[in-house]
């Protein structure tokens, strides 16, 4: 028990939790925007792989880190546009198109990687984002290390979440997006373009998912691996449900999830890790996500028109 307290009272543990939460926050915000507009985006896993690859590749080719983030965002928007065109004006099954986009984006990233680097055995590294201790704040004991000595992309994740929350809940644009996800016919009757709003939401949301992927290569691991996203996209879909489609709650969910993830890594080093197989610890995040879905399922606040295509003039 004292080992657990030692872990939970260390500032480095909370710093790690916030670091682990950052890519999830980007991608969860992206998925949340899509779903609030009524589109389930199962392309998230593949778009994260694509963002991880394009962001890394741009920097590997010599672009500055922030341009790498921009390239990742652009690649995510491109796949989002494809997803959006197929699911919004054409109204195809969001399940099938989303899975198709995931397969396509994952394969395209792997194809390009192999083409550009045919003979590498160990993945090349780039110089990733370095921590930016915020002057003054980073000197506060405990909180300084936990909160204010992160890399700039982590600060960007929290700023993005705040921005998404503000736009979605406090602006006319946000109201319009939410209206298309709740009652598209009523939104159209108000003179809103359901197609345009949904397309825009999927494109921007997919861009954010790709930035979440790019966090992994540009701020965490500094190389690209084929299976590095490893189900994080699916976990983000669970986080949206856990957060009841609200940005603030979704961020809390991501932090809670990341804390458990950081905890399982540290528990492996304790005597518990010598008794239990390491795979059990690695499986905890996935099992936890399923548990979260079950606990939250009772309070259904799901956008009413989620997964329902809208076709003008059809009732």
């Amino acid at each position, binding site marked *: 028990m004292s080992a657990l307290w030692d872990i939970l009272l260390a500032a480095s543990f909370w710093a790690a939790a916030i670091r682990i939460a950052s890519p999830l926050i980007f991608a969860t915000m992206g998925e949340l925007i899509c779903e609030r507009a009524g589109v389930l985006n*199962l392309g998230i896993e593949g778009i994260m792989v694509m963002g991880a690859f394009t962001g890394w590749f741009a920097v590997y080719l010599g672009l500055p880190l922030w341009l790498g983030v921009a390239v990742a965002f652009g690649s995510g928007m491109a796949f989002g546009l*494809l997803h959006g065109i*197929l699911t919004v*004006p*054409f*109204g*195809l*099954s969001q*399940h*099938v*198109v989303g*899975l*198709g*986009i995931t*397969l*396509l984006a*994952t*394969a*395209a990233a*792997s*194809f390009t990687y*192999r*083409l550009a680097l*045919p003979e590498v055995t160990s993945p090349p590294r780039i110089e990733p984002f370095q921590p930016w201790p915020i002057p003054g704040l980073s000197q506060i004991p405990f909180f300084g290390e936990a909160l204010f000595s992160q890399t700039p992309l982590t600060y960007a994740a929290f700023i993005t979440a705040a921005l998404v929350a503000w736009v979605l809940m406090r602006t006319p644009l946000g109201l319009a997006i939410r209206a298309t996800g709740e009652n598209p016919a009523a939104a159209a009757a108000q003179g809103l373009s359901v*197609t345009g709003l949904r397309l825009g939401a999927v494109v921007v949301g997919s861009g954010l998912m790709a930035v979440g992927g790019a966090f992994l290569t540009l701020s965490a691991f500094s190389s690209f691996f084929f299976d590095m996203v*490893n*189900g994080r996209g*699916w*976990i983000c*879909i*669970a986080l949206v*449900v856990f957060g009841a489609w609200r940005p603030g709650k979704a961020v809390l969910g991501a932090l809670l999830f990341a804390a458990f993830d950081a905890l399982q890594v540290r528990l492996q080093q304790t005597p518990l890790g010598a008794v239990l*197989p390491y*795979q*059990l610890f*690695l*499986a905890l995040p*996935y*099992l936890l*996500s*399923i548990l979260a*879905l*079950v606990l939250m*399922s*009772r309070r*259904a606040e799901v956008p009413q028109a989620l997964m329902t295509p809208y*076709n*003008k*003039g*059809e009732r």
Partner: protein
Amino acid sequence: MRLEPIANPSALRRFGLPALALAATVIAASLLALIAGADPFATLGLILEGAAGSRFALLETLNRATPLIFTGLAVAVAFRAKLWNIGAEAQLYAGAIVTVVFGMTSWGVAWLQLPIIAALAVAAGALVLLGPVILKTRFGVDEVVTTLLLNFVMLLFVSYLVEGPMKDPAGMGWPKSVPVAKDLRLPRLIEGLRLHWGFGIALIAAVLVWLIETRTVLGYRMRAVGQNPQAARFAGIPVNRVLVQTALISGGLAALAGFSEVAGLKGHLSRDLSPGFGYTGIIVAMLALLNPLGVVLSALFVAGVFVGADSMSRAAGVPTYIADILLALSLLFMVLAISLTHRRVVWR
């Protein structure tokens, strides 16, 4: 723009659009070859030759198609009832684990033991999908995410088994399981040809699923639930029970892929037993328009693309991932083409 339904699509529309989707895939393949610095025609030729150009190539394609028929059927059955089973990968591994557990020691009566193992494998796969479906029917938890997440849990479980309790002591440190007994390996379908009975079982399964879907009350109910669950409920169909029955069939079919791969091909369990057969099954099922007999054809097509791309890659130097791109594209093109056979785009 908006979409207007077409009551009676013309033959040109019904056959032309899917043909167009196929043509678009071929054009995409040529472009990808060009990007990779290879001759497009030579690349396409090498893929065809590698998939069906020789007896060896053809048998390789049939072997690769076998697990894809099972996972394709698993997905087709589930999607028909709008049960989004994306967890065929996990169910496949459940079948594979059971096959090794009950097959590592021979009882000396293979004709009895093999069917029992197959039945247990089916039960295991069905059980793996039963969890998410009960969560769906009892708590309203979306099965897409739960089945997807279980894939990762199952793979970690397999990793634990092959590094721990089921590890082969004679495996030179490789993480693979003990082998299944010699007499429990599936026999060749035709003497002298490198094709095991798994392929035969897959064909039988396809016919059985087709019979269930077209000739039984359950098949009718699955269709009704898939088209409109509310209407089905009003019509007195026990929707939840139908979903559970569908899940048992679907999970069992995916598990047979694991049974057939272990008992027919590999002989043991390892983490790389399936290179994503569960996920590829989604493409197989969608290309077949969820028709069980069509699944056989589309599995052959998909397997041919994989096997052909493998051999082309060795000769022409275009990365094998071209196969995954082409299949994902063909899926998207085909879904769009099918949708446009029944609807017309009106620009207004």
